């Protein structure tokens, strides 16, 4: 028994391994894969989106790798288009949220009141289920594509802001900052010269890691029926339409688009995690 235990439950101290090279390789591969995904969204022939009843409801084949739907639209084309939409929404959301997070966290340098306002705002956003916040904002904007995009863009900053804030707090207390302070430099100058350079890796990784969240949320909220209409190719729409055809045995309507979405999210996620290993291998902060 004890032998078995020590064989399968070895309580050991971890190995130090160099994972940076592997991380770097995976990052590069991830970027290439993403470029292919997004690029093909641009280049792909939109002919496949045209309604074509002759080819309706066909299972995956060489001419339609992901099959076709009940209107004869090619599911591969729809999926790739949907992913490319997801990518842009994700990019925009990550960018806007990144900017918001940076600005709000920098307010820490200005004064205490503003900073406590920021912390309050962070708590406020984290106090509401993310989905509910998305619903509220897109409701306010009357739904539609823009409603969805703005809702996704406005709700992803709190975690990153909290992370950056903690980082700034640390830098702020460090010695060379107080030296600069004594030399009469303004906070603006210090932010520009000392703090921003330090924040850059965190900000960049946070930016990348916001992608997967944003993409999943965009898909979720469109799946729930907010925003996009059915002509617009979005993964959420495709999947919510597929719900109606579950019992008809058209499995390809749901399987491939969802799988592709998963792949895209996973690529971003691993890209972010690998970059973190490359940039700062010791501080494996959780997102």
């Amino acid at each position, binding site marked *: 028994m*004890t032998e078995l*235990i*020590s064989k*399968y*439950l*070895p*309580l*050991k*101290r*971890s*190995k130090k*391994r160099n994972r940076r090279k592997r991380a770097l390789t995976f990052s590069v591969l991830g970027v290439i894969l993403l470029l292919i995904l997004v690029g093909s969204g641009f280049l792909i022939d939109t002919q496949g989106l045209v309604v074509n009843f002759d080819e309706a409801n066909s299972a995956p084949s060489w001419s339609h790798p992901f099959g076709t739907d009940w209107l004869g639209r090619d599911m591969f084309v729809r999926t790739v288009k949907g992913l490319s939409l997801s990518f842009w929404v994700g990019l925009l959301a990550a960018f806007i949220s990144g900017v918001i997070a940076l600005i709000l966290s920098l307010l820490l340098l200005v004064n205490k009141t503003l900073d406590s306002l920021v912390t*309050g705002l962070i*708590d*406020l956003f*984290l*106090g*509401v*289920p*993310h*989905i*509910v916040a998305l*619903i*509220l*904002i*897109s*409701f*306010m*904007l*009357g*739904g539609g594509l823009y409603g969805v995009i703005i809702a996704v863009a406005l709700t992803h900053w709190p*975690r990153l802001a*909290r992370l950056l804030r903690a980082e700034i707090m640390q830098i702020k207390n460090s010695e060379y900052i107080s030296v600069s302070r004594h030399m009469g430099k303004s906070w603006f100058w210090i932010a520009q010269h000392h703090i921003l350079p330090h924040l850059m890796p965190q900000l960049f990784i946070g930016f990348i890691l916001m992608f*997967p969240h944003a993409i*999943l949320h965009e*898909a*979720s909220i469109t*799946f*729930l*029926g*907010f925003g996009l209409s059915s002509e617009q190719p979005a*993964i959420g729409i495709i*999947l919510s339409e*597929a*719900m109606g055809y*579950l*019992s008809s*045995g058209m*499995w390809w309507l*749901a*399987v491939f688009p*969802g799988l592709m*979405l*998963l792949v895209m*999210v*996973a690529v971003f*996620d*691993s890209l972010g*995690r690998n970059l973190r290993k490359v940039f700062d291998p010791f501080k494996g902060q*959780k997102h």
Partner: protein
Amino acid sequence: MITFILKKLGKLAALLAAISILSFILISYSPVDPVRSYIGAEISRISPEQQKNIEQYWGLNQSKPQQFLQWAKALTQGNLGTSLIYREPVSEIIIDRFSASIALMGLAWLFSGVFGFLLGILAGMNEGSLLDRLIKSYCFILASTPSFWLGLLLLMFFASWLGWFPVGLASPAGSLTGEVSFADKINHLFLPVLTLSIVGVAGVALHTREKLIEVLNSEFIRFARAKGESGIKLFWRHGLRNISLPAISLHFASFGELFGGAVLTEQVFSYPGLGQAVVKAGLGGDVPLLLGITLFSVIFIFVGNFIADLLYVVIDPRMQIKPSHD
């Protein structure tokens, strides 16, 4: 201890007030016309006067701050208003729907917690092994999986293809709620719970794994081994103790994700819970219901975080009041 609770309650009050104001502002600027969404397609058959009357009845002709004050006043008296789509008091709908959701969320929370914890331990104990890498990849893939898609797949496989479960609805259509048997309930709960549990595993498992590895590399484990302890006994005495509290606490602090997952899962399985109601409210422009559920979900998350913090205060001898996890 009492100050801790009072402080938390004060924070909750502030949070609720801030969120009420904010969401009221958000909602009142929505272009969605509540009268139109109340009446639906028959709007064309209603005269402008009748429309005015309805607006007056709801107080829509008052200024926004007045409307808010009225709503807030009613709120403090426990009156959340009447839902436009269900035509019932919002509070009743919330209670009704939440009791359906709590079964789903509670079970999924429990299962994902237990399995996630076990998986995390298994991975952490065998750090770097094939098993560890498998569990880790599994968790990372899960974290990237859209929960509604997973639900769709399960529904397709178990319900449509194998025909083992019904395709939707928590109670069989046509029968009265009172007549729904326990077996029926399980039957309708199984797939949603499965979906939500699978999705919830990733977070706990990864966290437990990391924590366990940290603990196993700690000085006190090294010392315990130097004292001759090993295997299960060592894990039981020094490992489990040090990882279970953070894991349980983290799991309580994840009510937000749980709620989000429930919204999507309920939609997929047409499960008549709170999540489905909030989607309907959002899509149908049902302002009172939307506001009501928003506030309720805030309390829900808050309770989770509160328990997470409380656990540290009560159980951890160091008595540090740690902020809930982020």
